[in-house]
Every structure is written in C-alpha cells, then in structure tokens.
C-alpha cells in the first residue's frame, strides 16, 4: 500500500505512525502509574487497619445472614411488623412530598430570574445563579445537621434542608430548560403587546412544562431517599426507626423496614417512568 502512495503522503503517513507510537507509550505509562498508586494506597490502608481486610472479608456476610435468620425465627407475625412501620413510612413520604412541592415552587422562581433569555440584566442573572449554586452545594445532610442543632430534633430541619437543596438543584435544571425554549413564540406574544408575565406564562411555561414535570418527579424520588437518610440523624420517620432497630439488633424489624423502603422505591420508580412517558407522549 505504502509504495503506491505519493512522496508527500508517505511523509504524513510516517509522521502519523510515530505519533500513534508515542501516544500508546504515554497511555501505557499512565496506566502503569495508576496501578502503582492504587497498589501503594492499598498497602498503606492495610497497615493502618486494625485487622487485615483478608481476615474481615469472610465476616462481611455475617450480619446479613443474621438478619435473615433472626427474621425467620421471629415467625409469621413478621407481616404485622410491616403494618407497624407503615405510619413511619408515610411520614417519610410526606416529608419528601411537602419539601419537593415547596422546593419546586422556589426553584421555578429562581430559574426565571437566572435565565438569560428572560432577564436582560446580567447582574440579576449572576446573583440568582450564585444563590442557586450555594443552595445546591451543601448536601441535605450538612444543612440538616446544622438545623437540627439549632431547632432541635423534629421533621422541620429535615424538610427545610431538602427544600433548600431541591430549590438549588431543580432551579439549575429548570433554567436550562427555559434557556432552551424556542424564542419565536415569545417574540410573537411580545409583538401583540403582551406583558412580561403573559409572555412567560404562555411563551415559556407551555414549552418547558413537560421537562419541568419530568425533573420534579425525578427529584421526588431522590427526596424520598434523602428524607429516609435524614431520619438517621433525628428527623423522624422510617429512617429513625431503621437506625434504632439496627442499633438494638432487632433483626425482624430491620428486615421489615428495609422491605418497606425497597418496595416504595421500586413502586415509585415504575410510577414515575409511567408518568414521564405519558407526559412526553411516548404512551399513546
């Protein structure tokens, strides 16, 4: 092949070959370096641990096995435990629902003021974007821990924490959805002399609504998990029960709560993908 190539192309071909060779040498070297770093890290961790990971590894499954054995010994009354913890599950879902609703509302207002195609003032956009960044940058757990210390143990700190994080995270997604809407309908309304609010109501919201709803449903799912975790630090609900029962080594109760949690998440996953599909119009 190479012999049939003209002179100038042979030169390029040779250059290409040597370039490829250098590149693969670099790749090989960096992979080797990566392996070395990981291995040395493992050695450092191994010497730092109280017991070697190879001793601990076989015991890894002891606790899960205990859980199932304990539940089995508890007998048929295990079903009643599901009923017993149902109110806690509902209170956790309530927390998630309320904070998602409030957070979405806040996110909507934040997103309008941080969209370049709706707000002419660059400073306003900048300020509102930074507000959202700050809301988003602290995990719920961190905000909740601070608020729990200030407000005492109740659901309120958890709800506030989730609202703040949701407002920041959803606001960012909403404003991206807004900035991607077609500007022609907005201009059409402007040419009729419609007010700023009417332009947003019909020109923006109608176009972005399917995306808004999709993101909100997704966020609701995330917030159920978040409010469960916040239960661990004293926000109540099913998370708190889970934490207590693990501490007290009540195997049957722990399994019952986990069962409730997992089935809730699975159900919600199915529901939300169903909603999403019917919203986007995949489902006829």
């Amino acid at each position, binding site marked *: 092949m190479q012999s049939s190539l003209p002179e100038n192309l042979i030169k390029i071909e040779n250059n290409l070959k040597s370039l490829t060779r250098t590149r693969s040498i670099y790749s090989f070297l960096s992979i080797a370096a990566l392996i070395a770093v990981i291995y040395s890290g493992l050695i450092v961790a191994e010497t730092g641990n109280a017991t070697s990971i190879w001793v601990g590894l076989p015991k890894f499954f002891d606790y899960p096995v205990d859980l199932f054995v304990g539940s089995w010994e508890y007998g048929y009354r295990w079903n009643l435990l599901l009923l017993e913890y149902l109110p806690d599950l509902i209170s956790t879902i309530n927390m998630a629902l309320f904070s998602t609703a409030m957070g979405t509302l806040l996110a909507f207002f934040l997103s309008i003021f941080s969209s370049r195609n709706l707000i002419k003032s660059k400073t306003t956009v900048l300020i509102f974007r930074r507000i959202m960044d700050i809301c988003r940058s602290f995990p719920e757990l961190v905000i909740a821990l601070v608020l729990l210390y200030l407000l005492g143990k109740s659901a309120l700190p958890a709800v506030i924490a989730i609202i703040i994080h949701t407002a920041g995270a959803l606001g960012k997604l909403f404003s991206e959805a807004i900035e991607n809407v077609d500007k022609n309908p907005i201009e*059409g309304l402007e040419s009729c002399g419609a007010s700023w609010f009417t332009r947003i109501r019909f020109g923006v919201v109608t176009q972005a609504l399917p995306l808004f709803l999709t993101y909100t449903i997704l966020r609701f799912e995330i917030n159920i998990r978040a409010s469960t975790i916040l239960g661990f630090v004293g926000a109540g609900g099913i998370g708190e029960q889970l934490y207590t029962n693990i501490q007290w080594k009540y195997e049957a109760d722990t399994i019952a709560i986990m069962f409730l949690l997992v089935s809730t998440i699975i159900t919600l996953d199915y529901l939300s993908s169903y909603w999403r599909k019917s919203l986007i119009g995949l489902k006829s």
Partner: protein
Amino acid sequence: MIKVEKLNKYFGDNRAVNDVTFEINKPEMIGIIGRSGAGKSTLLRIMNRLTDATSGSIFIEGRNILSLTKKDKRAWQKDCAMIFQQFNLVPRLDVLTNVILGRSNIQGTLRSSLKLFTKDERVDALMALDKLGMAETALQRAETLSGGQQQRVAICRAMMQQPKMILADEPIASLDPLNARLVMESLRNIHREKQITVLANLHTLDTAKNYCDRIIGMRLGEIVFDDVPSSLKDDVAREIYGAEAEEAFEPTVTSTSLGDEQFAEAG
C-alpha cells in the same frame, strides 16, 4: 400619517438600517424588496419595537413611537400587528387560545394568564378563523398544523389585535405556492376592507408587483427605490437584488404569480 425620519440601526460597525426616511400618507399596501441582509426585517422590527433603533424617529399621527416605554410601548405593539416568517405561534397551545392571545394587551395579565376569556372574544376569534377557513382546527394544538395553516392562524391573531397597521416579515417565505397565494390574498383583503396600511417584506419581485400599490427597494440598509410598481424597471430591480437577482426573478420561485390555469393544475 406615518413618517419615518432618518432611521438608523447599527450592529457594531454594520449599518443594518442607514438613514431611512419615508412617508405613508394614506392606507397603502406596501412591499419592501431587497436581498437578504438589506435591512428589511430590522426596519419592521424597529417599527414594532421588537428592536430598538440607534437613532431617528417614527411619527404616527404626530407621536414618536420610538420614545414610548413600558405600557405605552405595549399599547403601540397592539396597534401594530406583526406577522412573522416562522409564524411565531405558541406550539403547545390550541389554535383558539393562540388567536385570542392577540387581545392579551387589552385583557390584562391576570385575565389572559388564567385564560378567562369572554364570550365576545371567543366569538371574534372563531369568526376570524372562519374567514380564513380555519374554524375546524380551533381546538387543535398549533404545532399539529402545516406551515400555511399556521400562517393563517397568525393572521387571525393579528386581526384579533384590531390593529391600525400590519407589518409582515417575509410572510410567505416558508410556504408552498398555494398557501403563499392564500396568505397574500388575505393580507390584500384586510388592507382593502379595514382600510389599514400593510407593510410586507417580500423576497420576490413578482409577489410585490402583483399585490402591492407601492414598492420600497432597500439595498445595504438604504432606500434606493420608492414608487409605484409599474415604474420599477428591470435594471433597477437587478441592482436592488444584486447577486440574488436570478433567484428573485425566477418565476417558479415567485409562486404567487401563478395564473388561474397553473393554479388549477397545482390544486
């Protein structure tokens, strides 16, 4: 009645509209011709206040509409309906609501946001749609309609504004021959029946000659021709269009000039 004086618009160093001056003293159907980038669209957008001019003034019944702000500006936009090349309807709203939103300036924010429309508004909108043969589509989403149908809905929305003049920015540039003809004819009818000025940017010469009482030719932001269509000579037109002349003169592109014979064939 309408007096445009020394209108200028710069985009950086580029003069999109350069010292444009003209007068409209009676309701006329005016076609603005010129190649792409000649400043036709910018001129119309300035008149509707979608774009701000760099300098100059536009007097309508003695009032400089370029100095209006906020509420007064929107009231002027209501008086001066605009039709766009891309129709600019709200795609996910039904046709009827789209048309009624032409009144949003009079309705006020709260009432139009909640879609609290009066019976009169619904009747007016339906009548306007019926006039252009679009009443059957009233409850369909605007996005389900074809381009020609959307443009007719856009004209209905413009009529709902009860405008004092109509600006049309390349109204037929993205339509098929049949719809182009329908749209131009309805604009012509509106001009005749309501006795209002219609100012239309048209890319092709034949359309302008067939439907307009007066032609304004623009080149590089300046007005280079302003007279009745019959006095527009071919060499002047060629100069206006420059490199795009062939396309603008092409009879198959100037779809609206179809005679009855060809019309029957196409239909």
